[in-house]
């Protein structure tokens, strides 16, 4: 069994999650502070990839990143770089698809943050950067971690947009999900089943992690009596 698809899936999911961790958090932070109308519009636009069929996302990506399209042709001309049909092309697809997951869970976490903590921190002279990294993020840790893990799990399972923009080249762009499809198509049932088991094992572990993170956030505080 050639393990390239596992390695490829993991690196695509890993890099995409890393990118989306920062993108999602900063989008969530700034949008939660934005004006109501701006917030409403951006919310819809940024959540769209969550409900669009992955093939539609793939189509739209090809429309801008394809070798004859606006961004794609520019990259080809300036850097001689083709943005599609390489292993890292899949990162474009997964980033777009998992962005809403990260964005929405972090926004939920930020909205439940008690702003009086930030206000009193400001009034004792703590910088906004300190407040963000040392108070806001730790307080929203559970929600943000759960969002990250969920985004990673979704990235691992991404098929539609990936297959359109990165295709399926064994040993080059094959991921677990595209491999399973190919093996099934070529009647290699036994190997397909092995990959299915691998995928299920990873997803199981990831979801277990999400559950444990959520349980920890419900831990009830111990209240001490005044004496």
């Amino acid at each position: 069994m050639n393990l390239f698809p596992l390695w490829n899936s993991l690196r695509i999911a890993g890099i995409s999650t890393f990118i989306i961790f920062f993108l999602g958090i900063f989008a969530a932070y700034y949008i939660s502070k934005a004006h109501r109308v701006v917030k409403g519009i951006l919310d819809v636009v940024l959540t769209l990839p969550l409900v669009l069929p992955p093939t539609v996302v793939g189509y739209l990506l090809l429309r801008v990143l394809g070798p004859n399209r606006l961004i794609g042709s520019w990259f080809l001309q300036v850097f001689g770089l083709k943005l599609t049909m390489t292993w890292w092309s899949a990162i474009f697809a997964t980033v777009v698809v998992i962005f809403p997951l990260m964005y929405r869970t972090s926004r939920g976490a930020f909205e439940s943050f008690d702003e009086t903590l930030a206000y009193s921190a400001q009034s004792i002279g703590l910088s906004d950067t300190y407040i963000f990294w040392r108070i806001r993020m730790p307080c929203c840790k559970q929600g943000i971690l759960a969002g990250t893990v969920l985004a990673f799990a979704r990235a691992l399972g991404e098929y539609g947009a990936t297959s359109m923009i990165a295709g399926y080249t064994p040993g080059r762009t094959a991921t677990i999900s595209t491999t399973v499809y190919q093996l099934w198509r070529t009647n290699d049932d036994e190997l397909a089943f092995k990959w299915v088991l691998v995928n299920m094992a990873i997803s199981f572990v990831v979801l277990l992690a999400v559950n444990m993170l959520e349980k920890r956030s419900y831990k009830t505080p111990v209240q001490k009596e005044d004496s």
Partner: protein
Amino acid sequence: MSIYVDVEKRLGPFRLKVRFSAGNEVLALLGASGCGKSMTLKCIAGIEKPDKGIISVDGRVLFDSVRKINLSPQERHTGLLFQNYALFPNMTVLQNIRAGARREQDPAQREKLTSEIIESFGLSGLLGLYPTQLSGGQQQRVALARILVSSPDILLMDEPFSALDSHLRFRLEGEVRQVLRDFGKTVILVSHDRDEVFRLSEKIVMLKDGTVDTFGSKDEVFANPETRNAALLTGCKNISRAVPIDDTHVRAVDWGVDLKTGSGAAKARYVGIQTHDIRAGEGDNSIFCRVTEVIENPFSYTVMLTPVGAANSIPIGWKMDKAAWAKMRSECVRLNLPPESILLLKS
């Protein structure tokens, strides 16, 4: 003058327009909920931006809409104590207090300040605990320590006791009074509890619907509230609409009686009398009343009395010792409202 505030802010239909000043003393902002007390505090701390006006502390301008000055909350040095104390839940008591000392650049000096404040607040036994492990009183003490270690020029307290059980409030109020005395600079206390305000503050600003209703020393305001709102906030429960007869007589419309008052009655729109200022027996304003209801309080009775012969009158509440009422206990009482105790109020 240590603080000068003159700001305006519009928030939907609500309009805040306040002006007051205070020296090195405790100034209370007293008012019903939604009157703009907390908003005023937030404007001073720099969390909310007024539409126009000036805020200065010790001659340092924090906000000036004309000169386009608007210091960040960090630059203002206003220690803000929230009613939930806002301790950072991810930090221990020690880390919370250390965070307050971060304005100090020198690490050695920072540690010195931290340990001094821990000592003076008696917190050394709590340093490793997290805020959720502390009682309400301990949380308040840590929050005050964290603010004071940041050496603020002014202390702003938003309903500091409302999160505590009533039996604790009194004791902690004593502690806080001592802290405020040691602080020695301007303190602004937001509250809706008149007893708390009376015990802690020296000056009072009474707010109503975003504007200053009454502003004066504590004794002035409590002895002689000038408006209906101020009388209500000082706890006056008996208030009637008034129609002046001459300079020393009014008709109390809601009670259906004419009353002799101190001078100045011609301008009164309302009259009021504190429940404990009412006497029994003959006098200048003796009113024959029927008892309509007796309300039992833990240590007193409030007897509700309606003047006999007055149509549609609202009852007058009279607070009495349990023993005194037990002795008197009757269906009709002759009340005396001493003229000097009658409050003449503007609307």
